[in-house]
């Protein structure tokens, strides 16, 4: 909730009898102007994506030796650049690779080491801090917003049901799920403001829900409109709302309006067993989400960068059950018309036993935070000092390898 909204709300909520037309919830809210034309989409891949299977370094002689069964489907037509090959489930993205709208970074990681816990790993990925910093409450994408001018609550959207820590913090953001609706009579709305008045958590979330439902056109002022049929339709929408395509579509719709930043997550990457099947399923979701963003964004695609990141990579060797266990160095995916793609970025560390991290994982040679940092530098004009001190504390930002077209 912006400061202005809060003040208006406090003024209004004292007087229950105030005229209904004074409530901003009853009239559509106009969108304010926003900072620039560039758009950034962050996709969190929960569960630790196996970077070595997604961007396969087939030029390394050890790969087939470490992963005889996982690499059985390696073919020529998935070749990217003579050293790396793409996982076959992402073949639908090959046209983007060829047109320079798709890139990868290999052997990257957050500063998180050794414990290999998904949950701490994801907390750190979203916090954007170094390993020593005790869990801060805000996320790096929110700290980006804190440095940007003219930010409104419509500038950034956290899409989906979860509370996305990546975007939480002092700057105003919107958080909504594609199946969200709110049907309340005018009287019920006013009474609700009364009952939430002294509870900041409920008051802020409730006000934002009313505001968003109104501005997204998913509100009605009829509390009685929920027939059995409505409820069934709602259930179907809820079932679809968790799907990556639906999240991507919702994000694109916001980005075509006044939003410039959107984030959502895709889970299901924890492939300890039967990885071929599991990874294929989730890569198809990711690929489809990227293609949905492209088609829905239309001409705005040219000003868009998508970055998909995961908490850590997986073991260099396949395990005893056709899967991989938790590792360290991993891969990152970049897409969008703003990207200067067709390349795999990063410093390849090699796969020989002595090159591995703890003789088990791909050695991380670069801080994964550098990539979103370079994007922010190029797209939103952030200064190196702001990036290294505030957005990503402790990051040593090297030279931009030229991520942007």
């Amino acid at each position, binding site marked *: 909730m912006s400061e202005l909204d809060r003040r208006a709300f406090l003024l209004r909520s004292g007087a229950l009898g105030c005229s209904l037309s004074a409530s901003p919830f009853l009239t559509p809210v106009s969108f304010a102007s926003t900072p620039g034309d560039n758009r950034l989409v962050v996709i969190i891949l929960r569960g630790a994506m196996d970077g070595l299977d997604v961007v396969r370094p087939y030029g390394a002689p050890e790969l087939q030796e470490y992963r005889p069964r996982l690499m059985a489907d390696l073919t020529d037509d998935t070749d990217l650049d003579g050293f790396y090959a793409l996982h076959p489930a992402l073949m639908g993205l090959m046209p983007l690779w060829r047109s320079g709208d798709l890139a990868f970074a290999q052997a990257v990681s957050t500063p998180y080491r050794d414990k290999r816990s998904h949950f701490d790993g994801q907390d750190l990925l979203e916090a954007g801090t170094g390993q020593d910093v005790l869990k801060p409450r805000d996320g790096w994408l929110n700290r980006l917003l804190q440095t940007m001018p003219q930010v409104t609550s419509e500038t950034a959207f956290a899409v989906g049901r979860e*509370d996305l820590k990546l975007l939480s913090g002092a700057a105003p953001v919107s958080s909504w799920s594609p199946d969200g609706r709110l049907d309340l009579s005018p009287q019920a709305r006013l009474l609700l403001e009364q009952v939430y008045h002294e509870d900041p958590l409920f008051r802020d979330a409730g006000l934002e829900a009313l505001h*968003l439902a109104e501005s997204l056109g998913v509100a009605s002022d009829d*509390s009685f409109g929920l027939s059995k049929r409505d409820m069934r339709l709602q259930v179907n929408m809820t079932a679809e709302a968790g799907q990556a395509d639906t999240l991507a579509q919702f994000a694109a719709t916001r980005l075509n309006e006044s939003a410039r930043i959107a984030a959502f997550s895709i889970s299901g990457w924890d492939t300890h067993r039967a990885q071929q099947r599991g990874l294929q399923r989730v890569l198809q979701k990711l690929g489809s989400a990227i293609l949905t963003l492209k088609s829905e964004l239309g001409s705005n695609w040219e000003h868009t960068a998508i970055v998909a990141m995961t908490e850590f990579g997986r073991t260099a060797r396949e395990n*005893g059950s056709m899967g991989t266990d938790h590792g360290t160095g991993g891969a990152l995916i970049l897409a969008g018309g703003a990207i200067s793609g067709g390349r795999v970025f990063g410093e390849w560390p090699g796969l020989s036993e002595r090159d591995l991290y703890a003789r088990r994982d791909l050695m991380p040679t670069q801080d994964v935070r550098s990539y979103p940092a370079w994007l922010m530098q190029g797209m939103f004009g952030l200064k190196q000092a702001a990036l290294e001190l505030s957005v990503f504390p402790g990051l040593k930002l090297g030279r931009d390898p030229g991520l942007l077209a």
Partner: protein
Amino acid sequence: MGFSPTKAAIRFGEGLSPDLPPPQSIEDILGQLASRDTVADLHPVPVFSALLPDFAAVTNARRAARRGRDTDDAEALDDAYRDARRTLVRSQISDAKQMFARSIITEAPFRERLVRFWGDHFTVVGTNAMMRNAVPHYLEEAIRPHVAGRFADMLKAVVTHPMMLLYLDQSSSFGPNSPAARGRRGLNENFARELLELHILGVGHSYAQADVHEMAKLLTGLTANAAQGFSFRPNRAEPGAEIILGRSYGGESANLADIFEALENLALHPTTANHLARKLAVHFTSDTPDPAMVDAMAGAYRDADGALMPMYNAMLNHRFSWESFGQKVKQPIDFVTSAFRALSLPTRSVERLKLNKLRSYVAGPLSAMGQPLFQPDGPDGWPEAAEDWITPQGLAARLQWSMAAPSAFYRGLPDPRGFAESALADLADDRVRFVARSAETRREGIGLILSSPAFQRR
């Protein structure tokens, strides 16, 4: 700011009911666990093992249908497979409804809360269509009998449970040098890591990657499948001893007792005591619990050799449990069950609920509120922080349900003014009372009371 019956019913129970008295003392709350589990007799749920014949029937029908694909019987076999599946799902759904019925009428609501708490601590998700709705049966078998017992006993029940072994891939893990691996199969670290990190010690500095690896080796041999349930297969076990946190286990012929010995020892580790105490305190009292209370709880657990009742006792008898009232927000499932209980929904209308209506008014809304039934995102279970639940989208879903669901279950809703008193008693504040008498309709009045922080918080 000490004990109050209303707070006790809301914080450590399923909320107030117009038909049942709240606990009158801390001894009352603990006494619920000492008394016979009568609500489980009234609303029985079969244990997971009892479903094995049904699983086998579905599996056999599927095989028969596949084998007979090109024969004259193909259609009949397909029908038989479909019927077997339907029968199983139908009985599982009616079992799930019993969980709601129990919450509405139980006189021992602390037990229901503890079953959900420990069920979340030992989160499982069904790995296929047959298992997806078998969570109530897992809880009935591995969790419920142990909530007032010893943690190690619950741990052993979980570690040998098919739902857990399949969910965290233990069934796919082989000792690399075991006969069954035949040089082709090997370790899968998944369960070993989550066991140490989530279930026992908690993430921290008490263990290292080497302990995870050793634990994975020690666990080899544990396996399960849908047809036979749990089994320990020595020919899958890695030969030799394993060293975990400096102690050696096994080394002779592989057997389950070595695994149990390790679990018994780890359950009594001071780090485990702290991990469990903190988790329990966070769930029931505050996202930032008083460290002194957590210490007292951990100490009580250690002094009692890992018995859980003394830990509950230490929590309930600490003033922080009562002073911090209101800091927690009900999770969606708790919100829905406490609303049913407050509305005194007849249990037979829950039991008779048609699948469509169950989807529309319970399962679907729970998903929209962020807590899809039996489908947490990962083995760490549901989040605890109030901010994780009271998001704009999550609160909107609670509002929608509050307005729509009660009248779908009742012909005549109660008067909101009376409902505010019976659902919140002395915690009904002026704002709630004002809303209760100012709403234009009963439906909105009830909806607003259910949506109020006074009803949502605990």
